[in-house]
């Protein structure tokens, strides 16, 4: 692009040049031996999984939310299959992403905690290894905890893009280490020695690090204060910051470079907090609307019961994200990738702003936290389909293996999604677990377990100091807001409790694996 006679690189051009000039040690990790000899060829469609962190299906107009948060998701859905009852197996990134990668529920992979790892015996049956025979495998995530999981599969990745690749300011230290040492580096540098929240293991360098990052942010941000009046989007646990348009352009460049047929896992931070929509989207939902009020749950310990202000900003951030997704959609269509790929739009978990909690990573397993979007466009699909069967993130792996004509291992706990040669089992058990306060190896002493069966949802809270051994039953069809606990009045509660109790007895056992 020319400006006043001088050639000026757009950000997209810069990213292309940077990749071409092999500024790759700073931009991406590519294992050289994995680039050689990977001449897959074939006519399989590409697969793109696009994850938006902490995107709750409840907050999308695509699924009936009163605010118009997702017009571009709706445009995408016009030629896609929309899953209306898709659930995450957990309420925060590490266990939910691990479940997606391995098609196992959290008690199998045991990555319960924020910095947890998938148990070694589960790692081999991961989505990247299983698809690798037929696909070039690529992964990128802005979420450092998801990136840590990706390093457990690094040997199966043809391209593992660095987490800071498209950030305005990046700061992950573990990425400078060889892949084999990245997890050790992550646990020592990025989450112990030099991290944003105290206490930090480094006495003096951590302070210097704070100071330099503050300076970098102030210098980088001074030209963007009008565009981002409440601050630049960032990654909560680090000093990384980004702009949505820059990240999306980075994703466009990445996808364009991948050799077909490819399987790519793209996991972006928005709309995860901090919620920082740009000025075009700020205040767009200053409409005074609030959902049905809900009482504080016994386990809700936030300073408010409901959080209308945060909900509004979150919705505006979603709208901002939706706009950028629209640009990505147009781009993929222009370069022909949309017609030659399965594009899977989903999330790792949701977000909640009621009952005395805001955000995620709580003890709750309410629908705003568990119900996530799932929209899949298939190559050549011209009409929308709607699927209302209960589905789970553990279903993605077997579905993709089926698409690729590859065998499905016995360890897989998911099922092939309906539409892809599956009719959906109305009596199927869908599970979700929150057990982040437990040891990975020891017995579970404090946990929340949810069983979704048809239209019924039973939740069991075990071991919490203020709410020991309590069950809650909801009818998701008649009571989607989960206002009425029918545990004592519904005759089905006994049958469901029996199933849940048996499962709980199985999963609370310690493991040495």
């Amino acid at each position: 692009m020319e400006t006043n006679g001088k050639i000026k690189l757009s950000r997209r051009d810069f990213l292309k040049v940077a990749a071409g000039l092999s500024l790759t040690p700073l931009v991406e990790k590519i294992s050289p031996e994995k680039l050689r000899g990977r001449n897959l060829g074939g006519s399989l469609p590409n697969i793109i999984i696009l994850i938006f962190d902490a995107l709750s299906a409840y907050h999308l107009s695509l699924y009936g939310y009163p605010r118009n948060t997702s017009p571009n998701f709706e445009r995408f859905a016009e030629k896609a299959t929309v899953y209306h009852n898709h659930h995450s197996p957990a309420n925060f990134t590490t266990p939910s992403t691990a479940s997606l990668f391995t098609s196992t529920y959290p008690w199998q992979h045991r990555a319960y905690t924020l910095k947890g790892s998938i148990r070694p015996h589960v790692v081999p049956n991961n989505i990247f290894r299983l698809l690798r025979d037929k696909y070039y495998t690529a992964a990128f995530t802005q979420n450092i905890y998801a990136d840590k999981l990706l390093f457990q599969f690094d040997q199966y990745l043809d391209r593992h893009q660095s987490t800071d690749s498209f950030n305005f300011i990046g700061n992950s230290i573990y990425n400078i280490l060889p892949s084999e040492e990245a997890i050790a580096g992550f646990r020592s540098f990025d989450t112990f020695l030099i991290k944003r929240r105290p206490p930090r293991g480094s006495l003096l360098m951590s302070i210097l690090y704070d100071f330099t990052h503050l300076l970098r942010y102030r210098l980088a941000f001074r030209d963007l204060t009008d565009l981002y009046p409440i601050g630049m989007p960032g990654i909560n646990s680090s000093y990384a910051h980004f702009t949505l348009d820059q990240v999306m352009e980075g994703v466009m460049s990445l996808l364009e470079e991948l050799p077909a047929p490819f399987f790519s896992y793209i996991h972006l931070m928005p709309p995860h907090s901090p919620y920082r929509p740009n000025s075009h989207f700020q205040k767009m939902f200053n409409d005074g609307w609030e959902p049905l009020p809900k009482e504080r749950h016994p386990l809700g310990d936030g300073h408010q019961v409901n959080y209308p202000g945060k909900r509004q900003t979150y919705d505006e951030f979603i709208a901002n994200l939706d706009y950028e997704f629209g640009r990505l959609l147009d781009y993929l269509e222009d370069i022909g990738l949309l017609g030659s790929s399965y594009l899977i739009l989903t999330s790792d978990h949701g977000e909640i702003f009621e009952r005395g909690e805001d955000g995620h990573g709580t003890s709750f397993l309410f629908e705003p936290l568990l119900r996530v979007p799932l929209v899949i466009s298939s190559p050549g699909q011209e009409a929308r389909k709607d699927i209302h069967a209960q589905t789970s993130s553990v279903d993605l792996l077997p579905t993709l293996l089926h698409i690729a004509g590859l065998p499905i291992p016995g360890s897989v706990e998911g099922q092939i999604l309906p539409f892809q040669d599956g009719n959906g089992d109305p009596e199927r058990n869908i599970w979700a677990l929150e057990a982040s306060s437990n040891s990975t190896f020891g017995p579970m002493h404090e946990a929340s377990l949810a069983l979704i069966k048809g239209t019924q949802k039973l939740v069991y809270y075990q071991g919490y100091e203020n709410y020991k051994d309590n069950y809650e039953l909801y009818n998701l069809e008649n009571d989607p807001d989960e206002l009425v606990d029918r545990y004592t009045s519904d005759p089905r509660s006994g049958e469901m409790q029996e199933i849940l109790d048996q499962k709980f007895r199985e999963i609370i056992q310690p493991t040495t694996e």
Partner: protein
Amino acid sequence: MKSKLPTRQEVLPVFSIIMFFVFTWTLYVMFYYLPSWLGDMYTRDILILSTYVFTFALLESLIVLGGMVLLALLLPARFFKDKFVAQGGFLAVLASLAAYLKHPKLVDALPLRLLYLVQIPIIALAGTIFLMVLLSFLLDRFPGLTRVVNSFAQGMTIFAYIYLPLGLLSLFVVLLRIIF
């Protein structure tokens, strides 16, 4: 140039004081996190993590020592280099205590709210310069004080014999892992 550098006998006590504060803090925070590490990491992984942590602590100590040596080169010898053990040791103590105040988990328990003023950079810098000038004056004025300070600093060298091998061994392991 060489005459402006502190001798090895002068560097060791100052390095020991630096290592004492850096490593002790790191160990304190490690023990704080250890229960959660034991909850989701294998013992082998914790040991590997520890090698990275102690390697970093060693490098951190060396960087701070490097800063002291740089000050000895830049500042008038009479003010700093000639009293390297006392001034360097004192500066290390001052910087470490100020750094402790920036790590709220520890100081929340201490009734020293006024000391949070050191978090303001200009106050920290001015206070440091004032105290160092004051110490220099006192060391010149009271030779006995110099003997006391040097004696204390020499006593701290015991920590070098503990932390330095720990740091070097960890560095060796980390380099082995990275190279091979």
